[in-house]
């Protein structure tokens, strides 16, 4: 996947999900964000931060994106075949479980 085709979705905890732009566009909000004429920070860096959405929720959302792509077009598409959802653990965040 090329860099230009992807967008980074960052959860409240700091997890970064790199997904296809096509997948992210399933969400109207994200689509508006990315195609808005005003040059916002998001479009500049290709990153969208969701300070109020937790990681687990965001992960499910990303899965939904790909599921939607796959089944709304009626056949298995390229990107759903190769999908990786890459959770990257940044160094300064800890994942607690108590």
């Amino acid at each position, binding site marked *: 996947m090329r860099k230009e085709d992807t967008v980074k979705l960052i959860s409240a905890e700091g997890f970064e999900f790199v997904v296809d732009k096509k997948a992210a566009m399933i969400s109207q909000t994200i689509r508006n*964000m990315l195609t808005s004429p005003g*040059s916002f*920070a998001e479009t500049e860096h290709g990153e*969208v931060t969701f*300070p*109020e959405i937790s990681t687990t929720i965001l992960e499910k959302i990303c899965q939904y994106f790909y599921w939607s792509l796959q089944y709304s077009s009626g056949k298995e598409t390229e990107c759903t075949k190769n999908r990786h959802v890459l959770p990257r653990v940044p160094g300064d965040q800890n994942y607690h479980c108590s």
Partner: protein
Amino acid sequence: MDSQKKTNFQIEAFKHRVVVDPKYADKTWKILEHAIHEIYNQNAGELSFEELYRNAYNMVLHKFGEKLYSGLVATMTAHLKEISKSVEAAQGGSFLEVLNGKWNDHNKALRTIRDILMYMDRTFIPSTRKIPVHDLGLNLWRDNVIHANNIQTRLLNTLLELILMERTGEVINRGLMRNIVKMLVDLGSSVYQEDFEKPFLEVSADFYRVESQRFIECCDCGDYLKKAERRLNEEVERVSQYLDCSSESKITNVVDEEMIANHMQRLVHMENSGLVSMLLDDRYEDLGRMYSLFRRVVNGLNTVRDVMTSHIRETGKQLVTDPEKVKDPVEFVQRLLDEKDKYDKIISVAFNNDKTFQNALNSSFEYFLNLNTRSPEFISLFVDDKLRKGLKDVTEEDVEIVLDKVMMLFRYLQEKDVFEKYYKQHLAKRLLSGKTISDDAERSLILKLKTECGYQFTSKLEGMFMDMKTSQDTMQGFYASQGAEVGDGPALVVQVLTMGSWPTQPCPPCNLPSELSMLCERFRTYYLGTHTGRRLYWQINMGTADIKATFWKGQKHELNVSSYQMCVLLLFNNADRLTYKEIEQATQIPTTDLKRCLQSLACVKGKNVLRKEPMSKDISEDDAFLFNDKFTSKFYKVKIGTVAAQKESEPEKQETRQRVEEDRKPQIEAAIVRIMKSRRVLEHNSVITEVTKQLQPRFLANPVEIKKRIESLIERDFLERDNTDRKSYRYLA
């Protein structure tokens, strides 16, 4: 992890973050307000869409939608007021550009703001029925910028000025115009119409009024029409380039109104260049242009058509009543055909084959053709001329074309029965003298007449053809039966004519020379032998003869003469000199015929086989005639005085007219009886109308004549006057 510690595991209900901060709304709004400012200042790169969206979302969710909305309105309005000031401040030429630029910026900002406030747009606004963000933005723009005092009029004036400049030939920035106009359209059709279109149409109307006045003073009709067409195309192009397409029909109406409708009469009647001169000169291009332009305005085509009709009627009337033209019938009819061709071409090339024009042409022709009462006769003479010699080397299709054209003229005639009479006479002469070029052409014309007028019209004509054919067979039979006895005598060709079919002529007796009378008697016996119960009358006045004559120095010539002339000439076999009285007595030919006959034998240069004493043009009763020994001619065969169809002299014309009138009487009576039989009782006026209608294909019935016929029928007990109503008639069985 220590598993010994037991903790109560409670799963709490999933709760949204509760708003505890009373100033929450204000704080959030401040963030958004700041964002809007930044957006307007083109400075949104620092902001996070997500954050703004989230804040707006939360405000609406927590029931602060109203504050958000009113805040938005206030902020936008403030910004627009500033923009308005900066637009006002723009100098002269750059006014439109500045306006355009600001409009684009505003649009961009509006879209961005709308994206951020999408949640409010989707939920809060429909439920409170407020104006959506995008439309709100347009309205605020309209109210604060476009309708700002200084800007509104200045904008309109600038636009109109630019259009005026373009109309006078300068080049303007069309792209800029297009954007500004599009802005007006986007703001709402009422804005476009009120702020621009209405004044535009008014100003255009004034402009074209002035221009058309100027043009019409200095240009002729053709030029003016060219200019009008050009302006019209210009306006259409203008609309397509930078105005809204809804304006197209409105502005073209304005141009039509000012340039064409207002000056219609003047254009059409213009001296030396108006419609009449265009028609005379066959200026197809100008005529076509006039047609397409005038078609756009109400009554345009009616005006053109009326002027054309009156012109055709005028020229037609002059043509038929001009004594010069009337002298040569063939020329006369040819002129009519040429006129018809000319106008047919004009209508098909320039007037788009418009049916109404074709009808106008037909009615005009009908009008003036019937002004001259001799038209039926002339048309028949024209056909006669064509069938004798005019169609000699013409191909079959061309023959058809000419005959079709003649039929066209025939249809315009009101007195078709007069035509029938003349045609019969001319046909008889043609058939008997054997002078018709093509039998096929004759039959073709008869067929056309039959299709046009029905069987009745042509039954007698066909009878004439039959008689000719039968006579040929009879002659063969005659010679076969006579054998060698008549072999070396003069050759006789007899045409037996059925009396009803052929035009009746009185058949005065005539003394045939002895050689012939015997032969004729023989024929009579033969014929009556085969056809009992018939009577034969010799019509010497219609016959021709070929005789061989020997002149001085043994010059032999074959002379083709009429039978009367033959009788006269054969007298000179027995005498060299004869007086008029002697000739008259010997031949018994009636006076007028004899005089004409002698005139053509003695007084015509080049054909004078007789000499007259004294030498003069006219024949008087005291003249004497001598055989002209010194007669010479280049040709061996000399034709003398063929009985060609001539234009009738006055007394002949009167006679024919009278006969036609006589023939009409029974036709009228038959029509009256037919009508009364079916209707039983009918009022006088209705009778007249019905009778005229029934007889219309044949001739135009005279009401006075019809009344006379009714009286006559009453006398003969076919009809009676109604007892109660003096004006009605009743049919008596």
